[in-house]
Each structure stands twice: as C-alpha cells, then as structure tokens.
C-alpha cells in the first residue's frame, strides 16, 4: 500500500506551535508512506491540487491529512481524493489544529504529539477498506398517524405535493382536540369554523386514504421501505353503504348508558353514534360495550330503520398492510386528570383538589365544551352539577404541570393562554360573573399573546392571583378555594361556584407502545424524542420517521401546524430521490463466527438486528445468526462492543483499525 501524507500549516494556526516540516519528515520514514509533504493551506484549491497530483504521480492508495478537525474538512479532502480516483474512505484526518496546535504552547511537545497523531492515522489508514455508499429504494407514500390538526396538516401538505398518504386515526372521526375547542387564542376564532374545511379537504383529497377507527399494529422495514400493518376496528356499519343519514342514532333506544367522550363526559351518547355532528367521515360506530344487541341478541332497532342496510353486527376487525417510505407521527396529547391513580401510574392525583369528586371542579377541555356553541349547554356557561350559571369561577393554572410531587416537571406551555381565553370568554358571556386566575408565572411568549393576556386583565377585569391553590373544599354548593396571594403576602379564600383546572398536557394513551412499535425513542413522560433539539426538531432519531405536534412536547395550534408542515416537507425531500444514499458506516456480522447469542439485538437502539437462518447445501437450517439491516443501522457500534464472539464489525471503525491506532499511540 502506498500512502501519501499531507501536513497543513493552516496559515500559522498549526505551524506556530507544530514544526510542520519536521512532522512531514518523520512521517516520510514510516513504512508504507510513499510521499510526505507540508503546505501552507491544504484546503485551498492549490492545496487540493497538490493532493490530487501526488495521488496521480505516486500512484497512492490512501492519504492521511494532518490538518484541522475532520468535522471541518474531512469532506473536502475526501472529495479531492475521489476526484483523483481514491475511495473516500481511504482518507484519514489527523487533527493537528483543534487537538494540538491550538491547545499546547510548547513547540517540542506539540510537535511530538503531532507526530504521534499522524502515526496513529497512518496505522489506521493502512487497515482501512474502500467502502461504498449504501443505496436503498424509496416507496413514495407516507403514513400519517393521528388525525388531529397536526396530522391533517401533514397529510394535506404531502398529498398536495403529489404523494399518496395513508392517514390513520384511532377515533371514529378526524379532528382531534382542536375540534373540541370553543374559540382559539389570541384571535378568538371559532375553532370548528377554521378546522372543518380542512377536515373535508382531507376526506375529499384523491391522494389521501383515510382510515379512521384504526390503529397501527406493526411497523417493519426501514427508511424508504416501511411495511405497516393497520388494524381497522369493526364499526359494525358498512362504510360503503352508509349515507350518514343518522337515522340509527336518532332511533337507538340506549340513550344514557355511555358518556360522550367528545363532550368530555359532560353528556351521554347512544350506543350507535358519531362523535360530533361535523365528524369526518360522517359514519357512525356501534359501541359493543353498551349496545343491547351484543348483550341480549335482541333490539336491532338500528337495523330496522337503516334503509341502506348498512348495519353489520357481524363485522370484525380487519388488518390492512401499507407500504410507505416515510412515517409522520402526530398522535397528540391528552390531559392529565386529577383522579387518584392506580399504583403503577407515573403520576399522582390531586387529593387536595378532591381527586375529581367535586362535579363542578372541571378541566380545561370540559370548560371548552361548556363554552362551545355546539357543546352540551349550547355555549351557555353552566355548572355540570345543577345547571346554574356560575357567578364566580376560579381558574387554577399549573395543575399537574411544574409539579414534581405529582410526577410532571415540565411546563405545559399552552395553559396560561387558554386560561386567559377561558376567563375572557366567561366574562363575555356572564357579565356579572367574577373570574379569578391562580397562576405561578404567566408565560405568554408568542405573537399577540402577551397583549391577549393584558386584555383579559385590563379590559375584561379578570383577577390574577399569584399563588398555587392548596386545597378545594365543598361547602353549601360552593367551592372554597384556599390560596395565597404571594405578591400581597395575604391568604386568599374564594368561594367559587365552579373551578376550572388547567391540567397538564401528557402524551396520548398508548404513546409509548406505539413508539416501541415504530422503534422511536421517547422521554420519561412518553413524549417522542426529536433527533436534535435545535437542528432536527421534526425528525425522530429513526431515519424516515418524522414528528409533528404535541406528541413531541406540549404545543399550541400554530406550532403544531408549523411542525406538521415541516415534517411533511422532510418526507417530500426524502421522496425527491428514487434511491437513498447512506454513509456506509454500518455494522456487519461475520456469519461464520456469530454464535447466535443475540445480545446485539438487545442493545441495538434501532432494532436493526434480525435473526437470519443459515442453511446448508440441502437447504436445511443449521444455525441462526444475527443479521444487521443496513438500511436501519445508524452505525453507533454498540453491538460491536457487546458481541461476545467479536463477530460484528463497524465499517470504518473496525477492531483492527482501532487496535492499530492504539498500537501507534
């Protein structure tokens, strides 16, 4: 092997403390080094030409450049090598600037260290092997999980770019939490009014395949090549036949057995129902758990009244497989509730607020329903317990959020704003009503947000009290809210008619199991982790899986929508190529010596390790070995260190290469 050594002075950055000519001289003496030279600016065009010419002239197989950090110019020198006909992975960089000349003063010591660093790189390059980038094909179809505003936005953006979308929603209708809101801050737009057109667009879009009442069961494959299994739960209504006339719903005799979860349990729904009038698709679902037919085999009222014969009691869950190239996860959030939790829950309830036993102590979403014109009270603010109009409401912020003792340390971000909005709506609707807000800090960062909060205080006379509430008692149909005004240093007791708790946003049910299904990491709360908190906020660490909305952390609507569009464009960028190129730094198993212990499978953060059968000449399986899917492997090398038989090697960083570096220390 013929190696070329190139020492860069980097102007004087390196040469001021490293004797570059001496380093080049010493390297020239090492075995395998065919050519060694130092130059003022190796990264400049003349410098690169120097390298290219040397490669040609001395017929070099590999080069070592002593220069700045590989994070700076590794790519530059690799490109130079490629244009001179050398494999880019036959290039090693010794970091003589950041790790040597800049950090040591003594010329002798840094020159010696530079020589040693060069020696290590030379020994490594001798063992380097040419590698080629990995190419994988791309299926240009995206799976969007979750049909809230983030999922809707992501689906529409991708579909409008001309790619097919499969949109999976676990509820009978898309719309998510946004469809439950009354009005949105800071503009007080009617939430339904701005959302419904988007929902209809999704429904009618030729590129979007909408699967409601469905859940993702299994995800296999890797970026560009996912195979997804989706379970479509039985609606017991034939979707092709149903016209959405709603006759079955009107005639269903079961009226008060099941709570309406869209109305946050403030109302009942029949056994056959659509969650809300604007539901997309407008096809009902029969709830087996309450329907009389499933209990006694009788009734069948819906069957009789349906003139399209769409009722199908025998319908079963079905499985569907979709091939997609990218996945956008937009599963959203749910609200923490204050009820007493079972032993294994991550969170604790609020005994001091009654563990949910007080009927007029409600959460923010319940208030949204009460304030919503389409809600159970038709938009009139009334108490759930007796229907009276509350004359005094206490709003309490940070319930659950920022409360380590309950298990949630983070700020839920949107509560300050929606509480201000709710207090404002209440003051607009009940003119003689008093609104008190107990808060710790007001976090109103956002366009027109701070102004909005000030408006609540200045124009709508909402009274803000800085302090957490310690206890809520019921007394004569009123709720005694015990707080402290920490600004005045005075205890405060409010006898409220209703209390609204701004409870924390937590990940949607099943977020963690979905994350395991897809193979993406999540934090201790169950929020999905982004690949980089600053620079890759919408990508998960698993290639080809993107995140949108509150499933990643608490977010308001504009943020969710921006994130959704960003995730969609990430998918579209991916689809701009027919094949994908990946760095070849991946792990590979030597099947001859693999013992099949599969420890690697346990430690692999990406699920890249599979079981592979090894067959003999007769096609009979005689052992199982680990197989690393090169499309999935990200090249961390954890498996290589874990492997007991030392049969896994990470390309570009294999044991032989590292040992050589060590030996040359």
């Amino acid at each position, binding site marked *: 092997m013929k190696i070329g050594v190139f020492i860069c002075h980097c102007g004087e950055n390196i040469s001021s403390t490293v004797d570059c000519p001496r380093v080049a001289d010493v390297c020239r003496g090492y075995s395998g080094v065919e050519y060694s030279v130092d130059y003022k600016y190796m990264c400049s065009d003349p410098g690169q030409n120097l390298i290219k010419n040397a490669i040609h002239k001395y017929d070099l197989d590999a080069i070592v450049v002593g220069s700045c950090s590989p994070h700076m110019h590794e790519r530059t020198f690799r490109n130079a090598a490629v244009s001179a006909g050398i494999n880019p992975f036959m290039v090693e960089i010794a970091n003589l600037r950041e790790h040597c000349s800049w950090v040591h003063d003594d010329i002798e010591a840094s020159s010696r260290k530079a020589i040693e660093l060069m020696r290590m790189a030379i020994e490594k390059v001798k063992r380097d092997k040419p590698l080629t980038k990995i190419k994988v094909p791309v299926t240009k179809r995206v799976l969007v999980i979750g049909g809230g505003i983030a999922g809707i936005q992501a689906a529409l953006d991708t579909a409008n770019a001309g790619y097919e979308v499969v949109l999976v929603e676990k509820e009978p209708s898309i719309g998510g939490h946004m469809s439950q809101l009354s009005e949105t801050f800071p503009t007080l737009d009617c939430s339904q009014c701005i959302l419904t057109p988007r929902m209809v667009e999704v429904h009618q879009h030729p590129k979007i395949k909408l699967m409601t009442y469905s859940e993702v069961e299994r995800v296999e494959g890797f970026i560009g090549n996912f195979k997804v299994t989706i379970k479509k739960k039985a609606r017991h209504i034939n979707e092709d036949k149903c016209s959405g006339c709603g006759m079955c719903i009107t005639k269903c005799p079961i009226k008060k057995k099941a709570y309406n979860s869209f109305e946050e349990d403030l109302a009942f729904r029949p056994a056959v129902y659509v969650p809300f009038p604007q539901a997309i698709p407008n096809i009902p679902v029969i709830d087996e758990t309450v329907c009389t037919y499933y209990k006694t085999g009788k009734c069948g009222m819906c069957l009789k009244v349906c003139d399209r014969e769409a009722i199908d009691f025998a319908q079963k869950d079905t499985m569907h497989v979709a091939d997609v190239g990218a996945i956008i996860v937009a599963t959203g959030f749910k609200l923490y509730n204050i009820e*007493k939790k079972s032993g294994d829950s991550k969170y604790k309830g609020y005994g001091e607020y009654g563990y949910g036993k007080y009927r007029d102590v409600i959460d923010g979403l319940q208030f949204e329903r009460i304030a919503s014109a389409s809600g159970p009270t038709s938009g009139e603010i009334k108490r759930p317990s007796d229907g009276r109009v509350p004359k005094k409401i206490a709003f309490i912020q940070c319930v659950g959020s920022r409360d380590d003792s309950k298990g949630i340390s983070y700020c839920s971000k949107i509560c300050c704003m929606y509480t201000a909005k709710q207090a404002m709506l209440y003051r607009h609707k009940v003119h003689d009503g008093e609104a008190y807000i107990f808060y710790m800090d007001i976090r109103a960062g956002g366009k027109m947000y701070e102004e909005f909060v000030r408006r609540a205080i200045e124009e709508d006379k909402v009274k803000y009290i800085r302090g957490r509430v310690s206890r809520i008692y019921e007394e004569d149909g009123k709720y005694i809210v015990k707080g402290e005004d920490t600004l005045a240093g005075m205890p405060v007791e409010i006898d409220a008619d209703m209390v609204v708790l701004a409870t924390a946003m937590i990940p949607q049910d099943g977020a963690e199991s979905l994350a395991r299904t897809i193979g993406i990491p999540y934090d201790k709360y169950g929020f999905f982790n982004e690949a980089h908190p600053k620079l890759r906020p919408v990508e998960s660490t698993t290639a080809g899986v993107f995140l949108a909305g509150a499933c990643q952390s608490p977010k308001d609507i504009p943020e969710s929508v921006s994130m959704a569009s960003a995730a969609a464009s990430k998918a579209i960028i991916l689809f701009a190529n027919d094949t994908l190129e990946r760095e070849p730094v991946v792990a590979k198993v030597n099947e001859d010596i693999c013992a099949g212990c599969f420890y690697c499978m346990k430690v692999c953060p990406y699920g890249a390790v599979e079981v592979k059968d090894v067959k003999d000449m007769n096609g009979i399986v005689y052992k199982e070995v680990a197989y690393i899917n090169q499309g999935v492997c990200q090249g961390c090398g954890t498996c290589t260190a874990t492997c007991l038989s030392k049969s896994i090697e990470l390309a570009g960083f294999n044991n032989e290469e590292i040992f050589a570096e060590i030996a040359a220390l």
Partner: protein
Amino acid sequence: MKYGYFPGCSLTSSAKEYDISLRKVIDKLGISFDEINDWSCCGATSAHVTNHKLSTALAMRNIMLAEQQGLDNIIAPCAACYNRLIISQNEIGKHSGIRKETEDLLSVKFKKDIKVFNILELFLKSGINKIIENRKRELSELKAACYYGCLLVRPAAITKFDDAEEPESMEKIIEATGAGAVDWNYKTECCGAAHSIARRDIVVDLSKKILDDAITHGANVMVVACPMCHTNLDMRQRAMKRKYPDHKEFPVLYLTELIGLSLGMDEKELGIDLHYTNFKYADTLLNNSAKG
C-alpha cells in the same frame, strides 16, 4: 398476633380513656399487647421544634427498648408518638450520619427493622373481621366524621398506608362497627395540636372550624385517633363556647371507644364519661338491646 405497645404520655394522663378503651377492645378481639418496659416520652412536638438531635434520640430510645425486649413491632396509638417514631426511624434509615450520632448517644446499634403501626393499621390488619364477628350493638344511628388529624397520615411517603388528602381507612373500621361515616372536608386539617396551651386562641379557632364542618356534613359524632386532637376538640369546647356563644356541644369519641360500644361495652367501662362533652346518643344506644 402479639404487638409491642407504646402508650405515650398522654394515654397515661389526659387521654386515659383512650388507653382504657384500647386495652378493653383488643382484649375482646383477642389481640395482646406487650408494653415496652420503662418507655419514655417520644419527645413530641416540643423536642423536634427546638432540638432535632434530641427529638431523634428520645424517639429512638423507645425503639431501642423494643428491640432489646425482642419485639418486632410497636403499636403507637397516639398519632403524635406514631409520627415521631416513624419519622425518626426514617431519618436514621436515610442518613447514616444521624444514625451514627443517635447510636452513639444511646450507646447502642440498631439492628432490627422494627415496624411502627398506628391504631388504624392495627385494626385494619387484625381487627376488622373480628369487630364484625363480635358486634353486639346496633350503631347505625351514628353518623361519624372520621378525623385523622395531621400526623396520622403524613407524610404519606413515610407512613405509606393511606392517602394524605382523602384517607379512607378509618371509615372502613367505622363501617365494620356498623356505624355510618360521612364524607367531609376537614379529615386531615390541623387542630393546632401543640399550641393547645401557649396559643389557645389558635386552637379554639381551628378546632371550631373542624367541628363545624363535620356538623354541616351531617355528622352526629366525631371520631379521633389522637389524644392531642381529642384534647383540642373535646376539652376546648368550653373555651369555644365562650368565644363563639352559639357553639353547640358536639361529642368527640376515640375510635376505640366507638369500637367498644359496638362490641357491647358500656360508657363507663370505656371511659366515655371522662370526656368534657356529653355523648348524647349514649343513653339510647345503651338501651338499644344487643343485636345478636
């Protein structure tokens, strides 16, 4: 099952009836006690508010005695003693420095992990069924407000037996006696406890609030498991009456007295006559002939 017994100072004096009724009741239920020999005061509030080391040492002295006596567990019927013992135990368990300091003070090494139980745990563990079996008297007229006070269930992380805000264990025991329990607000609110003498005004106000809430929620008797709570809620009703003239006397019983009644014992036997307030249902109850 045999239990070690740490009565605490109050049960030998101001809360004699608690001791009397407890001994009677457990005797009837076939539980036996082994009193810690030469036990001393747990240090109570006065020690821990002024001298942390002293308070731990005083409490641990009794645990040390129990260990020397070969006991595995201790029943501390007084909520304050229970709290001091369990917190001190937790302290020395958590901080090796305090452990060493206390061990040096008492010239002893703590080896055994002696479990300290409060009175509720005692009945929950080995009483409920026996109470039901031995029930002699109909108590369904009673609507009890179970008052836990502050120290019985706190801190929940250390006591580890009931919820600190909405406890339910005393209600379970009350239901076993056949009496009813009301849901009310001040189950775990503080009565002022240690300020009973030095700041009686505070205690009177706080205790009044507690009694009023019980009355508003339809209770006709209050049940407590702490001698200090009892002193404040029972004895201080006179002072209460002076400060709030419209205050009506409200009976406050020890949990053990109520159990005793259900087991057919009479008022005197249980020491109910030692209270400052009259238990007005006593007559009707006592005349109410035994049920089985």
